[in-house]
């Protein structure tokens, strides 16, 4: 589904990603861990097409298409969803209106008619339940005045509504209380299928108890320096990143 080869990206002339290689297949869950500033959010921003970053080398193929040639909105329409580490507020625009616009734009791209109002409402209800989102939040302006945890939950709600092919969750667990973590993770698991894939970026192995990854990658200084089974996350939690530094001789 996703194939990243030797990806280099920089911002303001400063290289952040220094040769990333990553293969994600349909049905898989990949976890990416790594110290602060190692480039995790940068990688997700580059995948989503944020223009501030310049890709200087390498390639990204997504479902057979050259992702780097697509605009951010087309990437989203092709099925890439990014749950932001810091979700953005849009005052005056209701969540419902926002999602309706997004959903219908994605449908239009696929040559589909806008969704019928009643189908849309039904879907809204169903997905709201899935992530146990308060009905009031759905009607409020996008993320405006939401608590940190509510914003994160809203990201997963949007993901459920838009039904992406590849979801990238950038520290969706941070800021969630224990119950919310369980609910959000449960939601992600329910949305999992053999046709879609998830990349989970996290600092805590706790989340990986709920969303069990097929592979764990360690991103360090712009490179994936180690990949392994889910036990790698445990090891990291125990030993910290120092042993990785030693291993890669940094």
């Amino acid at each position: 589904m996703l194939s990243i080869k030797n990806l280099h990206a920089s911002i303001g002339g400063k290289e952040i990603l220094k040769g990333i290689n990553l293969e994600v297949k349909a049905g898989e869950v990949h976890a990416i861990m790594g110290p602060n500033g190692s480039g995790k959010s940068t990688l997700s921003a580059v995948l989503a097409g944020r223009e501030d970053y310049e890709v200087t080398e390498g390639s990204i193929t997504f479902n057979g298409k050259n992702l780097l040639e697509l605009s951010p909105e087309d990437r989203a329409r092709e099925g890439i969803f990014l749950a932001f580490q810091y979700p953005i507020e849009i005052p005056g625009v209701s969540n419902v209106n926002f999602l309706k616009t997004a959903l219908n734009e994605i449908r239009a791209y696929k040559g589909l008619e806008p969704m019928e109002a009643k189908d849309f409402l039904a879907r809204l209800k169903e997905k709201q339940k899935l992530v146990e989102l308060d009905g009031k939040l759905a009607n409020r302006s996008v993320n405006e005045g939401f608590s940190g945890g509510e914003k994160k939950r809203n990201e997963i709600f949007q993901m459920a509504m838009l039904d992406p092919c590849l979801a990238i969750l950038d520290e969706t667990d941070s800021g969630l209380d224990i119950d919310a973590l369980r609910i959000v993770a449960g939601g992600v698991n329910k949305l999992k299928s053999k046709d879609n894939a998830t990349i989970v970026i996290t600092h805590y192995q706790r989340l990986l108890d709920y969303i069990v990854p097929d592979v764990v990658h360690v991103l360090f200084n712009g490179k994936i320096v180690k990949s392994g089974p889910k036990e790698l996350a445990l090891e990291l939690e125990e030993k910290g990143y120092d042993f990785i530094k030693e291993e890669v001789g940094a």
Partner: protein
Amino acid sequence: MANEILEDQIGGEYKYGFVTDIEADNAPKGLNEDIIRFISKKKNEPEWMLEYRLKAFRYWLTLEEPHWAHVSYTKPNFQDIIYYSAPKPKVQLNSLDEVDPELLKTFEKLGISIEEQKRLSGVESRIAVDIVMDSVSVKTTFKETLSEKGIIFCSFGEAVQEHPELIKKYMGSVVPYTDNFYAALNSAVFTDGSFCYIPKGVRCPMELSTYFRINASGTGQFERTLIIADEGGYVSYLEGCTAPMRDENQLHAAVVEIVTHKNAEVKYSTVQNWYPGDKEGKGGIFNFVTKRGICLEDNSKISWTQVETGSAVTWKYPSVILKGDNSVGEFYSVAVTNNYQQADTGTKMMHLGKNTRSTIISKGISAGFSNNSYRGLVRIAKGASNARNFSQCDSLLMGDKCGAHTFPYIEIKDKSAVVEHEATTSKIGEDQLFYCKQRGIDNEKAIGLIVNGYCKEVLNKLPMEFAVEAQKLLAVSLEGSVG
């Protein structure tokens, strides 16, 4: 439907920039007493009207153009303007068949279908329209339906002929010709406009609307609107305006007066879309307008709602004098400037009566190299006990070459007053846009969504038909301003 709107937006150019090829009956260029006599004669006016004009003109001659607004432009040459231009032939239009087909085409392009209006007239219709092209009113619809209720809705010129007692009583009672430079000019040379009178206890059953169109080149448009709601009366009034794209600057200097008697209410909504000039700032309308209402008696209410997207330079402060006790004044405004547009707009709320309340919500949006200023005055007179005002002035910046300014003035002469003022300035963020795009929404739609969200409180005040129009307009005006 949604796609059509989208295509419209992507088109992005000023949609109303066409010129209608209609023969016009023009006055010679220039301004002097003879020109004023010419206009008055053309309009077959009574002597008192001519006298009023001449008095205003003589006063105007003693004035100098105001400089205090935060705008800069080349002064219009008042001798280089045509003060009267009428589409020919000027006939009393009694049926649709008499309307010049070129005019009909114009209306269709403007999205005003008289056919449609006519078709609806038997059934449930919601908007009556008065259309003013250059200097004259060319068509007023639904006059008969309205007159059954005693409502007078006609061109200003007609009102001078048919209802001189009302004109004499109210004209200049809110905006005297001595008020300011452009009000004096207007009082001297105004050519037409709309007049509306709502009798005692009548709620106007439909929206009344005036559509202003500048068509001829080299002309100025100087119209007057006078709206009176007698005791317990109610009317919602809409104003729209467009002009062709021309390299020259054309002057629009209008006067609008509103009077509400006891328990009466007038809602006045404007979608101002005069030609703003091109991307380099060439051409466009100078929009110097005096709009004021007076809540003359107790428990009456006046609200101004405006969506300002057009004009090269705008200078306009729709205001309310709250004279009657318990009267209410409201001002809801969205002002958009892009490219080299300049707007200095806001309101004045003058509290004279007891327990008077006013609300000001102003949303400025600046893009390109434009300048957008809010200027507002809240004055609480001595004896206006328990007066309250709430003001909120928000500015939204798109890009970093534009300017937003707020000039709030507050004068409180009564200790019991409660005045609150809030102001914010924000930038339309790359982050917000990227967030939308990441959800599959393209740049244009994203800007539309964000801007409409920002203006929601104001747009909500507009009548339905206008709100949709205004939303589209906002998106078009900001075309290409970010990203």
